[in-house]
């Protein structure tokens, strides 16, 4: 029954005297959508950065898919299928939408020490890139420079790039940040069918989204996991209520 794809074991990260992660321990079951919530400054983004490898951890361990990845750099973790998206849109701004997705696909096709053939005419990159753009609803925007895309479209593109790498697990850092109501709904419709295929760890402020999507919720307070459970359990948990109301 229990088949954790990601295990976080007493992870710590200090910035000076402040412990952003303070013995953080939780695990994510394969195929689930697992939400990470908590008040501002609880250490959610720090945790994501530690899991993706962008921040090194002071102590503790991270196991992903049966391997200890604690000391692995970002790119190595990404290649084994642990992908992240960013809270603030992070794209390749001088490329077109299709170029951006093609770069994600290219990273999946082995090394890029190929110096001669024109990559923009390579159908093994371009065709799948177009398919993924279509899937996230960006058909017709393939040749647009990404800077000319609307904010919501850039978020969709961000998701397209992450999906293009065929990840086994996604770390989604506020995928709906800055989105309007309808864009938010659209993004949810994109994420929902991926459940089962791709495990997702979702950081999100919008509780409606969390309770609509997540199978499991972990509440983070002061760098520690305060509670983990189903959305209903979390809703009913008195500790969680206190933490959110501020008289913790």
């Amino acid at each position, binding site marked *: 029954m229990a088949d954790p794809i990601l295990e976080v074991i007493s992870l710590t990260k200090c910035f000076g005297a402040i412990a952003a992660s303070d013995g953080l321990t939780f695990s994510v079951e394969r195929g689930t959508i697992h939400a990470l919530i908590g008040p501002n400054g609880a250490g959610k983004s720090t945790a994501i950065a530690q899991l993706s490898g962008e921040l090194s951890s002071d102590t503790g361990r991270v196991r992903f898919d049966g391997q200890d990845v604690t000391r692995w*750099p970002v790119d*190595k973790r990404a290649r084994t299928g642990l992908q992240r998206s960013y809270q603030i849109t992070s794209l390749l701004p001088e490329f077109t939408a299709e170029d951006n997705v093609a*770069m994600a696909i290219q990273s999946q096709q082995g090394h890029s020490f190929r110096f001669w053939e024109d990559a923009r005419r390579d159908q093994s990159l371009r065709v799948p890139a177009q398919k993924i753009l279509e899937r996230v609803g960006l058909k017709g925007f393939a040749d647009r420079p990404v800077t000319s895309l609307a904010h919501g479209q850039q978020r969709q593109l961000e998701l397209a790039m992450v999906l293009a790498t065929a990840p086994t697990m996604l770390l989604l850092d506020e995928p709906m940040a800055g989105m309007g109501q309808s864009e938010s709904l659209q993004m949810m419709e994109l994420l929902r069918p991926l459940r089962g295929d791709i495990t997702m760890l979702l950081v999100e402020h919008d509780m409606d989204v969390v309770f609509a999507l997540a199978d499991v919720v972990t509440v983070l307070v002061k760098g520690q996991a305060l509670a983990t459970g189903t959305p209903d359990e979390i809703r009913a948990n008195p500790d969680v209520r206190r933490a959110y109301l501020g008289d913790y």
Partner: protein
Amino acid sequence: MEAKGPFPGIRGIGQMMFLNKLLSVNPNGRTKAVVITGLLLLLLLPFLAALLDDPFLVDIASRILIYALVAVSLDLILGYGGMVSFGHGAFFGLGAYVVGILTHHSYEGTTIAFLPGDWEGTTQAFIQWPLAMIVSGILALMVGALSLRTSGVYFIMITLAFAQMLYFLMISIPTYGGEDGLNIWERSEVPFLDLYDSQTFYYTCLVLLLLCLWVCKRLVKSRFGMVLQGCRQNETRMKALGYPVYRYKLTAFVISGMIAGLAGALSANHTEFVGPGLMHWTRSGEIMVMVILGGMGSLFGAVLGAASLLMMEEVLSGLTEHWMIFLGPILVVVVLFARKGLYGLLVGKGADNG
């Protein structure tokens, strides 16, 4: 957002509007026209010099081609890879020294100093030039391996420091002329070619430059080139996509160093002299100015930058010793108002596919 024409920054001024209009017809056709005009000019230059009865012109033009080659090599990592190497003079100078040292020993009939075994000098271009590229490439591998672990200002400073180290190293080796440098008594030997003939030398440089432009053009459009450009735009994202960016940047750095080494080998033949001055940081700065003036991220722009800087130097230094006084403001204007350099001014919006 969309900038129209070559002067997006000062669109409000009436005259400039006119200039924009005049220049911005069919950008793609214009790219082609500019490149073809430039190519024809380079091909026909020796005939032009003969017509004008000015043989010195071919000599200056050869110098331009050699510096164009270094500028292209720097543009590859600066314009496409976003690596601001402030030590490119080191690779250029080392390539020149390889030719200088080999010729020196060949002339004196001695063996190469500081190396185990008895290696003799040679004047054969087919040994000298590839060796210059390899030695410069090895230096680039060492410098790059260390400096690419940093970024931003630190990267600039470390590349600068390495170049200055090499500069002082060459000053302190009296065997190879120390501060005075080495005179080269024989130019490289190429079968069937006489490099002493200034036209032959010019065309040799031109062929090598065009070859290098072609190779670099393919390179920047390839998968490798796309990764390189991705690193310039957003390195964090490239890592998150799974690219080990360090390896790609280091490879580009080495390729760039090798091309600079080849340019150095040509320069040694051209001036028949090598000295530590080739490695001085002011030389590295000059190469960087060429790239910025011509337009970062367009290979043809680097050629244009080298040509315009050296021609400016030629013309202005005839007027006054302090010709740099004029260069400064020109550079400021280009940086402020022509985002893609002189090449961007010429071809307008199509500047990206240079």
